[in-house]
């Protein structure tokens, strides 16, 4: 079964005045273990599409099913819980809580899920080691580089044991070295742990690493290329 099933997805703004079809009929399935990039020019609907897949925005029509659950059937409270337990997020910026350490940021997700303190801390340490910053667990975000902060964000996204991770332009604020390191780490996690990644990106380096590249144009899929 696909982790994500999207059927005839539409998102229209200003329906009553001058309608803007940000997403204009998308059908898509994402399987477990995919490392997929959603690409396209600015304004093509990538972020809008990703927001709907992540349950951050409601569609005008169509459906998004995650692990068999149509997210439109969930109340707003259920949707928050669903995101917490099924989806990991990595944003372009402002990913981390500035007043918490790296370990506390990762443990925070598990605390939201109701995990016990000792379990949270142990697992947070493990995840931070997996993403390559096990020696900086007690540093606050302002004491970490942008690349290191994104690594913590990935560790936090993994902490909730999600079905997949949505990453919206995760490399936009990073230099080349940091981008390369981040992508290597994500690819490693994808390979070793079969974690599903879905990127919205302009970054060619991400596109090059992706095993599937879906191009959006004017809110529709214009190409869907799987690399061998």
């Amino acid at each position, binding site marked *: 079964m696909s982790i994500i099933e999207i059927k005839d997805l539409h998102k229209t703004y200003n329906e009553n005045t001058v309608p803007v079809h940000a997403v204009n009929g998308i059908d898509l399935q994402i399987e477990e273990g995919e490392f997929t990039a959603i690409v396209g020019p600015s304004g093509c609907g990538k972020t809008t599409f990703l927001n709907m897949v992540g349950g951050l*925005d409601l569609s005008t029509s169509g459906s998004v099913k995650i692990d068999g659950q149509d997210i439109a059937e969930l109340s707003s409270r259920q949707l928050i*819980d669903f995101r917490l*337990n099924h989806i990991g997020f990595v944003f372009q*910026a402002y990913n981390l809580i500035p007043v918490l350490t790296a370990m506390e940021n990762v443990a925070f997700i598990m605390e*939201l899920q109701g995990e016990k303190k000792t379990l949270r801390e142990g697992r947070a340490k493990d995840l931070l080691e997996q993403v390559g910053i096990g020696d900086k667990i007690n540093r606050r975000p302002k004491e970490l580089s942008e690349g290191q902060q994104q690594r913590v964000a990935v560790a936090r996204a993994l902490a909730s044991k999600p079905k997949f991770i949505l990453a919206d332009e995760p490399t936009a604020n990073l230099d080349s070295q940091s981008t390369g390191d981040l992508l290597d780490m994500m690819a490693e996690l994808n390979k070793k742990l079969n974690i599903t990644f879905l990127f919205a990106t302009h970054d060619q380096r991400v596109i090059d690493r992706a095993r599937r590249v879906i191009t959006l144009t004017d809110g529709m899929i214009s190409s869907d290329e799987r690399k061998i």
Partner: protein
Amino acid sequence: MSLMNIKISWKNVWRNKLRSFIIILAIAVGLFGGIFTNAFFVGMLDQRINAVIGNETANLQLHHPSFLLDESINNGMPDIISIFKKIKTVDGVKGISFRINETGMASTAESNTGVMINGIDPELEKEVTKIHEKLYEGEYLNTSSQIPILIGKKLSEKLNTDLGDKIILSMADGDGEVVYAAFKVRGIYNTNNDMFDGVHVFVLKDKLQQLLKTPPNYATEIAISMEDDQLTLKAKEDIKALFQADVDQKEIIVQDWREIDPSLNLMIQSMDTFAWFFIIIILIALAFGIVNTMIMVVMERTRELGMLMAIGMNKRRVFSMILWETVFLSSVGAVIGLVFSAIVIGYLGKVGLDLSLFGKGMNALGFDTIIYLKSSIEFYITVASLVFITAIIASIFPARQALKLQPAEAVRD
């Protein structure tokens, strides 16, 4: 309750140290202002009450009801010795004094003025009021002196009279005849209450009774002092019960100092209301400041809040995070304000606040010029609780603004 949430809230208070410091200072100063003002008025009023009880009315008084309408020498109480014996049995009674009160005129070669003439037994009076401790010059009344009179400093200024000078008192006796008598100023007292000091003179009760031809064992006023003012109201009921027949037949009326000086009682009630009104005004002003600060906080952290809601922080947690941050911010200010208030009020409660600059005006109204500030633990606790409640109320609007954020829009760059 999420400890992590509370930890985040506490740490968020210190993210913008300057802004937090300003609002904390505003809360501390506002609270200090309110508490100081309250302590000032409580202290001032407390001193006034003590002065009234200690120098003027005592805790309780007994009169014939007619005396309250017409302060004639004929409207007194006979058989005061047996009254004395009965009252002595009441719990908490410290002293009992008999007085003959008569309005009259005091005259010297240079001036004259209306006075209230109080005929007292000096030794009994010492147990009831503290006039003997308020001597400015000379000595207290004693039976060894001939025709002694004790006058107030204000009266001595009015009449331009000093120790050893003669004063002529004129008054109406029991038959309505005007009688005159010369008295020698043996002592001048000063209670810092010009209204009292300018009017009340004290002479020996026996001498006054001779002049006014009242029967022996007679008084127009019986004043009672208590070990503790807290016992006054119970003692009043006990005394009423002892003299129930006389009370019922309107031969005796028992009053506490609040009834004797209703303007003071009104002042107490007004001050209390005013003090709380003042505190609430301050808290309302502080609430607006807190709301303003927290709205800025929410607006600055739109992306952060959007991210938190996106990753799965539910509305209840977002709300409580803002609420706790507001409470912590307010509480730090409150603690500083309360501690500073306690130190200042504690100090001024011991050394007093010297307002001699306004001395004349204050004495004219019956108040001391050195005010010993006074506050209570209960007041501090109540103020602290009100600050906490204000913080909670003030957090509602900013927290609701945070909940209105849409994660998808909020996280966008």
